[in-house]
């Protein structure tokens, strides 16, 4: 630990921390544009200038260093005993001296000379570092009278637009494409004040390559100003109108930490949230843009039942009555209950409890999205398993005595022999493979709980409208054993209900004794009954997640 005098504070920081981070840890803002903790540090924006104090032998005193230093590249380390300042400090640095304040204001003036000041029509307004820092550290007027550069607006890729006039050339996006995604599509063109971010193009402007890698959306997040803009979010909403909730991406088994931004009428965008061991600062575009199914107009809003071979909307009481009727006539060995890798641990726990305690069956299955492709980047991996909770669902479904959780071919073999199948799906529309379709067609009475009409619901006798990750609380367990919380943002559409509530209702209908009131309560039950999850209460998981003890893969 280094003992540092930071302004008037005496602080202890870990060796190797830079001044920007050390200050941030103590609630002091050192403004910066080019510095990003996940990228290299070119120190080109010059915003984070700070004033180190050094021992100057001729004066025999500690004095401000002649040059200001960039906070991002000034690393704090323990000094050898004979080099301590004032006999105790490893470093003395000021972030609020008059010299620093003047330098900041001067740099901001330069940053704004070519800026169009088009905040009223800029997507970034409200979450813009240029706005915020100008407000807090800048001059109140510009002295620039000359003609401004007006570089053209450019299309960089499927989801990214560049408003070059607003760019401060911090090169975060370029470094992201070089270091994290390793795809290198971005660079600077021209020189000096004509510097522009661009993709490679011919002299006439026809692209040779576009920014279409699966991590491209991150450049929009890390752009400190309104230069890089997501087409998906363009002109959709002012950021200050959006509610935010910390959640976990349901796109694959990595379990990227995300912030879901939403209004009452649906989700607006998803941004990655920092988690050191899982996704660092990043997420992929599949996850980022994969939320649209939640807002879909096709969402199942009412229970459906088959009448004359047609699925017809009905009301909950009727749908549950039809199910109860069909279930009561079947032997337990003819029932298969299939949980979802898209569902939360809580959903699956209630489901297995329903199967084990109420239906008295031990034949369970696990259903989820079809596997995709794995994509490896220098600092990021997108996994092939497109379900957020396969690991959790597998453990939870199999947690009760004698439960067998079947998957793949074994499951479909069992399904084709069964009379009644209760299948919980969820997530984006899932196409069925031939073997799966054939097996499900064999089933006499198929109950499907899903969020969108799909090939699965078409085969169902009763369809129950469930909920997506955005409409419920709960936990997901990722492929490396991290248990993390998702949070309810919007209300489910129509009469759709949270999955475990549906299962519980069904259980009650069949005389089961289940009375959970909220997801956290189920998590307590899991903690009590599933040894691996002993610590996995919602309270303990919090925003950081917990790692299961025995799943250190």
């Amino acid at each position, binding site marked *: 630990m280094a003992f540092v005098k930071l302004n008037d504070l005496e602080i202890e920081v870990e060796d190797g921390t830079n001044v920007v981070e050390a200050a941030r840890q103590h609630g002091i803002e050192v403004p910066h544009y080019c510095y990003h903790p996940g990228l290299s540090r070119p120190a080109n924006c010059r915003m984070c200038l700070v004033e180190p104090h050094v021992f100057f032998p001729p004066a025999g005193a500690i004095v401000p260093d002649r040059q200001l230093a960039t906070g991002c590249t000034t690393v704090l380390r323990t000094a050898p005993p004979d080099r301590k300042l004032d006999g105790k400090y490893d470093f003395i640095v000021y972030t609020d001296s008059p010299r620093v304040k003047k330098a900041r204001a001067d740099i901001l003036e330069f940053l704004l000379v070519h800026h169009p000041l088009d905040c009223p029509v800029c997507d970034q307004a409200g979450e813009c570092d240029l706005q915020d820092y100008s407000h807090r550290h800048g001059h109140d007027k510009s002295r620039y009278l000359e003609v401004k550069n007006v570089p053209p607006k450019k299309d960089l890729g499927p989801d990214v637009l560049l408003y070059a006039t607003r760019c401060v050339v911090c090169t975060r996006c370029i470094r992201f494409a070089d270091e994290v995604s390793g795809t290198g599509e971005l660079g600077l063109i021209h020189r000096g004040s004509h510097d522009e971010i661009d993709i490679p*193009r011919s*002299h006439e402007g026809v*692209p040779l390559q576009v920014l279409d890698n699966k991590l491209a959306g991150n450049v929009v997040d890390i752009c400190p100003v309104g230069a890089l803009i997501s087409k998906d979010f363009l002109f959709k909403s002012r950021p200050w109108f959006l509610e935010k909730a910390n959640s976990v991406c349901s796109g694959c088994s990595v379990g990227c930490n995300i912030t879901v931004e939403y209004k009452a009428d649906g989700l607006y965008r998803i941004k990655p949230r920092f988690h050191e061991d899982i996704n660092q600062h990043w997420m992929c575009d599949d996850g980022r843009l994969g939320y649209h199914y939640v807002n879909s107009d096709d969402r199942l809003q009412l229970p459906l039942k088959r009448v004359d071979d047609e699925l017809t909307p009905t009301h909950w009481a009727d749908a549950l009555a039809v199910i109860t009727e069909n279930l009561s006539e079947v032997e337990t060995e003819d029932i298969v209950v299939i949980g979802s890798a898209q569902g939360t641990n809580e959903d699956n726990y209630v489901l297995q409890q329903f199967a084990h305690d109420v239906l008295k069956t031990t034949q369970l299955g696990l259903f989820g999205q079809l596997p995709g492709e794995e994509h490896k980047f220098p600092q990021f991996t997108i996994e092939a398993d497109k379900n957020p909770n396969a690991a959790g669902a597998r453990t939870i479904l199999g947690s009760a005595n004698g439960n067998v959780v079947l998957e793949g071919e074994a499951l479909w073999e069992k399904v084709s022999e069964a009379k009644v199948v209760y299948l919980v799906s969820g997530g984006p529309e899932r196409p069925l493979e031939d073997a799966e379709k054939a097996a499900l067609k064999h089933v006499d009475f198929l109950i499907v709980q899903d969020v969108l009409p799909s090939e699965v619901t078409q085969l169902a006798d009763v369809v129950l409208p469930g909920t997506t990750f955005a409409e419920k609380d709960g936990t997901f367990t990722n492929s490396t054993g991290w248990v993390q919380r998702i949070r309810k943002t919007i209300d489910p559409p129509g009469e759709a209900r949270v999955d475990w509530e549906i299962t519980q209702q069904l259980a009650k209908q069949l005389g089961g004794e289940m009375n959970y009131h909220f997801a956290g309560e189920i998590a307590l039950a899991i903690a009590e009954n599933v040894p691996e999850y002993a610590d996995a209460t919602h309270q303990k998981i919090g925003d950081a997640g917990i790692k299961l003890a025995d799943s250190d893969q």
Partner: protein
Amino acid sequence: MSDKLIQIETPFVFNGENQREFDALIGRYPVKEAAMLPTLHLAQRQVGYITPAVMKYVAEQLEVSVMKVKDVVTFYPMFFEEPVGEYVIRVCHTLPCALRDCKGVLDHLKAKLDTDVASETNLAKGTTPDGKFTLMKVECLASCDVAPVIMVNGDLHKNLTSEKVDEILNDLSEK
């Protein structure tokens, strides 16, 4: 968007001599990317300017992304992205030459060639219609003792006067 990507119809490859030179170049550096500037000079010597095909080829040869090549090409004024005349006339206009009336030389050249001065992003502006000359201004050519100077392709012409400029142009036109 991908359907709008540029289609490179005739790929670029080094000719025999340049390939040999390139092979020698690559061996000089511990990383291939370092051969960027000499490689681009070679390619420009072969085709006259840096085309998208050249950028793609150089990127493959040096194992970097195309953007890294484009980045370098646009940074350095000696690389052209458009066709230039057979003779590129660079007129120095920095202070020592300015003190010795480089403006007179430039105006004379403009009148003689009946063309404007090229800008870095628009070389066509300074190229004569017959494609013989491209006239451009450059910064200090490090020959301030013999100012004003111009450079025609690789050759430096010193202590210029209008008469000398005429002579040079005559020589070049006859070639």
